[in-house]
């Protein structure tokens, strides 16, 4: 169970995020007030070690913060989640290296925001293959990447970039490179006028960077992806979607309660649908918490436990089902709120929730994950 002070800090950020959520969505602008609040509450260091100035939180607590933010503003919650994923990669795969430990301390002290640059033109959305390669000469590196999307790239203090290990390396032999403000430039190549998740500000960019050779994380990205980036992504994303679904259900419940007060003695028709959607939300919450707890357990047991086929299937299944549930739940909530939910300017509006929810099945497409699972199922034995 999370520390009450921690939850109070998350709730204060969520209150600010909620205040600006509609405006952030309408204008497709960065939720600067909510991110400033995350910094003020020292939550950007959540996944970093306590010795480095972070909060040393495990998956369960990270998910709970993301869920609370997700109830207020899905874009803010996703930016928080993506940042913690990058931070976890640095902590779990770089902390023993003096350069990265020093950076982690600076990140916590200054509450720096890290963005991810994994997408690339021409890789077909495959996280585990890169076209660009880092070029190291002596102790200097340079890197150029044509990214199809960089979430909050223009607002980030640093980027964590996937690329091939060297110009001769195969597409799957990747590393992660950290580039700090001043070491990279971004040239925008597309717009970000989307159905939902508008506050994440995620257009395409050509990224050009330079730095020192020590800015390459020593572990192969294959390891970082299997043991950290994929587990943290699927679980933290699902936590933010759970928050979105929770708020949609809360709106539906409030709507039906108001109707019930008009006609005491009779149960309004929408109440039945509230009972139905509440059951779905309970299942969704149970799934997210179960996988988060298992991840915490496996991380304590040792990193190899995270790289099993069994756990990979479980995380993939969580991502697929949570992304489906969030749209289903928001859809049901819209049905309950009726026209009041369909209006964008009503306090029962479900429009933003539903539009944001539809991103879930697309960010790493569910079909791609099903394809991976289909192949993993061929060697996995337990039901």
């Amino acid at each position, binding site marked *: 169970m999370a520390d009450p002070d921690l939850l109070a800090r998350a709730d204060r950020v969520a209150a600010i995020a909620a205040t600006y959520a509609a405006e952030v969505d309408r204008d497709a602008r960065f939720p600067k007030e909510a991110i400033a609040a995350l910094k003020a509450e020292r939550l950007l260091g959540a996944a970093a070690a306590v010795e480095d100035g972070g909060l040393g939180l495990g998956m369960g607590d990270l998910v709970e913060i993301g869920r609370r933010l997700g109830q207020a503003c899905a874009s803010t919650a996703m930016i928080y989640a993506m940042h913690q994923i990058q931070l976890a990669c640095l902590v779990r795969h770089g902390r023993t290296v003096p350069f990265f430990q020093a950076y982690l301390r600076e990140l916590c002290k200054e509450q720096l925001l890290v963005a991810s640059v994994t997408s690339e033109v021409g890789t077909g959305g495959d996280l*585990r*293959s890169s076209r660009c390669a880092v070029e190291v000469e002596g102790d200097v590196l340079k890197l150029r990447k044509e990214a199809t999307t960089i979430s909050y790239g223009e607002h980030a203090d640093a980027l964590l970039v996937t690329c091939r*290990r060297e110009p001769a*390396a*195969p*597409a*799957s*032999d990747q590393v992660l490179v950290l580039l700090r403000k001043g070491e990279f430039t971004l040239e925008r190549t597309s717009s970000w006028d989307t159905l939902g998740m508008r506050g994440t500000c995620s257009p395409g960019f050509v990224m050009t960077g330079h730095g020192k050779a020590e800015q390459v994380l020593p572990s*192969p990205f*294959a*390891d970082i992806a*299997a043991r950290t980036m994929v587990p943290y992504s699927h679980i933290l994303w699902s936590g933010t979607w759970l928050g979105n679904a929770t708020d949609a259900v809360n709106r539906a419940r409030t709507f039906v309660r108001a109707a019930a007060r008009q006609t005491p003695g009779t149960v309004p028709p929408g109440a039945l649908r509230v009972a139905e959607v509440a059951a779905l939300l309970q299942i969704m919450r149970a799934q997210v918490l179960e996988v988060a707890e298992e991840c915490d357990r496996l991380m304590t047991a040792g990193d*190899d*436990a995270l*790289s*099993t*086929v*069994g756990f990979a299937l479980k995380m993939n299944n969580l991502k697929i089902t949570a992304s489906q549930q969030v749209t289903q739940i928001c859809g049901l909530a819209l049905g309950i709120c009726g026209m009041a939910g369909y209006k964008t300017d009503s306090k029962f509006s479900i429009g933003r929730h539903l539009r944001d929810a539809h991103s879930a099945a697309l960010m790493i497409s569910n079909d791609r994950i099903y394809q*991976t699972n289909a*192949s*993993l199922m*061929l*060697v*996995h*034995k*337990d039901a």
Partner: protein
Amino acid sequence: MTTPNADDIRAILREHGRLSGDASALSDDSDLYQAGMTSHASVNVMLALEGKFDVEFPDRMLKRSVFESIAAIRSAIEELQRG
């Protein structure tokens, strides 16, 4: 029962591992993932190994470290064949 030797494992890697270079150039300890084997290709390698050596990798062995090199694969198969 086919005893696992490095050349048989290399032949399976050549056919299914989608390595970037020639599998015969790999030492027994070379990191197969660094040699370009993706996790998708590793599933095909697992299936081919199960077929060739008449073993079933239990779930506890289905993790990166068991398939990261020819030597690791050989010792896993030997462990299963000992029963």
